């Protein structure tokens, strides 16, 4: 049950988890690198310069250049901006949309609930990547469009989770008790249902960030990602993998490492939030 000391307890449990704190620090550092980095290390990420293609690291280009002559270190920052913006935008939009839909379905119940759930089942029945491959045939992808598409395909699990949570909470004794005491519907939703469902919502929001970044990288690998000169880490990586066996290691390892580190960090945070929210695991 939600009490005043609960947030502090959750924060304390989270802080004890060193891996999660490290994850949080890592995300902060990577975000700083991507968004503040270009101020210190400005590079040209717009015009192709074939004369400067595939130069090894060192000298003017700290991490070398790619086949189009882009500075790899600078491109990690530019690509990271796209990957991170996409991850966070999709996560926020997904959470708002999914939570609202799930809460409405769970509170409404009956036929409305059944219909709303069948809509979710339908879209979930087709793999998101499959729907995306169809959709990028019909629309031209840019960052905004891909954020929109990923949101439309990612809000379903959280809607289902929130609905389930609302359904269980609705029947719990403490909710029945405040209802008997004459609490209004709005009071119940914001004072009792929301704080109790927030755990599921936050955990899901965290994992949505990493899923979105990975899905964009899969799209880039299939050649259906962001159009050049825009880039994301997945696109840099899949482009670099073409040269994996030719000795151009700086085209492969930097994007691979930063991509995996980011996703691992986000997942560590999500895992720790889940553990911190779960009362049963607190006293093993």
């Amino acid at each position, binding site marked *: 049950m939600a009490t005043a000391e609960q947030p502090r307890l959750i924060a304390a449990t989270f802080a004890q988890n060193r891996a999660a704190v490290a994850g949080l620090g890592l995300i902060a550092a990577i975000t700083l690198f991507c968004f503040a980095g270009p101020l210190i290390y400005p590079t040209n990420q717009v015009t192709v310069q074939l004369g400067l293609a595939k130069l090894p690291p060192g000298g003017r280009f700290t991490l070398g250049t790619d086949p189009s002559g882009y500075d790899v270190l600078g491109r990690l920052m530019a690509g990271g901006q796209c990957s991170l913006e996409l991850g966070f935008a999709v996560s926020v939009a997904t959470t708002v949309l999914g939570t609202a839909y799930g809460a409405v379905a769970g509170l409404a119940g009956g036929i409305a609930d059944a219909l709303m759930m*069948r*809509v979710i*089942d*339908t*879209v*979930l*029945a*087709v*793999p*998101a*990547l*499959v*729907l995306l*491959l*169809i*959709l*990028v*045939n*019909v629309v031209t992808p840019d960052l905004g469009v891909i954020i929109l598409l990923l949101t439309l395909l990612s809000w379903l699990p959280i809607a289902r989770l929130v609905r389930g949570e609302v359904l269980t909470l609705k029947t719990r004794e403490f909710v029945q008790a405040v209802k008997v005491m004459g609490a209004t519907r709005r009071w119940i939703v914001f004072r009792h249902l929301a704080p109790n469902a927030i755990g599921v919502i936050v955990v899901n929001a965290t994992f949505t960030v*990493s899923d979105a970044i*990975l899905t964009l*990288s*899969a799209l880039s*690998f*299939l*050649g*259906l990602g962001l159009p050049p000169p825009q880039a994301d880490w*997945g696109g840099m*990586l*899949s482009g670099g*993998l073409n040269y*994996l*066996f030719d000795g151009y290691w700086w085209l492969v390892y930097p994007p*691979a490492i930063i*991509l*995996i580190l980011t*996703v*691992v960090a986000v*997942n*560590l945070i999500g895992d720790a939030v889940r553990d911190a929210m779960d009362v*049963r*695991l607190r006293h*093993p």
Partner: protein
Amino acid sequence: MTAFLIRRIGQAAAVVAGVLVLTFVLIHLEPGSAARAVLGPHVTAGRIAIFNSTYGLNEPLYRQFGSYLAEVARGNLGTSYALQQPVSALIAQRLPRDLLLLGAATALALLIALPLGLYQALRRNRPGDYVFTGIAFTLYSMPDFLLAIALIAVFCVQLRLLPPEAPQATTVTGLLADPRALILPVLTLALVSVASFSRYMRSSAIDTLAQDYIRVARAKGLSRRLILARHVLRNSLLPVVTIAGLSFPAIVAGAVIAEEVFNFPGMGLLFYQAATSHDFPVLLGSTVVVGISTVIGTLAADIAYAVLDPRIRYGHR
């Protein structure tokens, strides 16, 4: 149980109908795009009109959908623009190969993940747990294509143990005749699932171990092995079964990537090639087949759930 089954199958039918509508509408959002994709960018308006009337694309959308449904009911999924073959034949060729690939990968994943998750739960927060958690996190955080290419780099280029291309035989027995070439595609798909299955098994087993009935069983003096096999394993299996059923779409998405990397002649590769060449009948047909498979998969998981958990008795609300 019967009432539950009937209701559940009714729901499944509604979802299949929904998938048909959804896919059809998506593909026909932009009229004329199919003609331009097949005939090239410099095609004249006249040629587009001829193409559209040949394939019935100039009729109103609801009528196209009606005739599409009538054809689907007769088992006809249309003709591929690019390959000029019936879509149903293309899918019928590839589906058995995918059952082999996905079935082997999922079985391997469960075979590794269940004992691994249980081991981690028993050794919770000790070095062994940390090592496997680290490995699972890294695998889970890798793009599928990177994992596939890393496996090729190690096993094909460095060690020269396995071929980098999946077997190209047309039949399932033909695929099985070259098992070495199957190892890497199966392993790629399995490793991705192991990462998530073992996480679920671990937390599910931790939950179970904290239950009172485990304490009771221990107090009764049951052997550790009996407790693990009869109480912990069976009760921890439930969420994992659900997850395995629900992760079917994710496995299919992984298959699109893995089939592209290893050139495995399955549905994923067919679908990807159709997506890049705007081959709408193939896109539509294979999405419908995948959708129906997912619905059947979830249904099977639900029924398995009811069988595994005696507390769940559907039928009354």
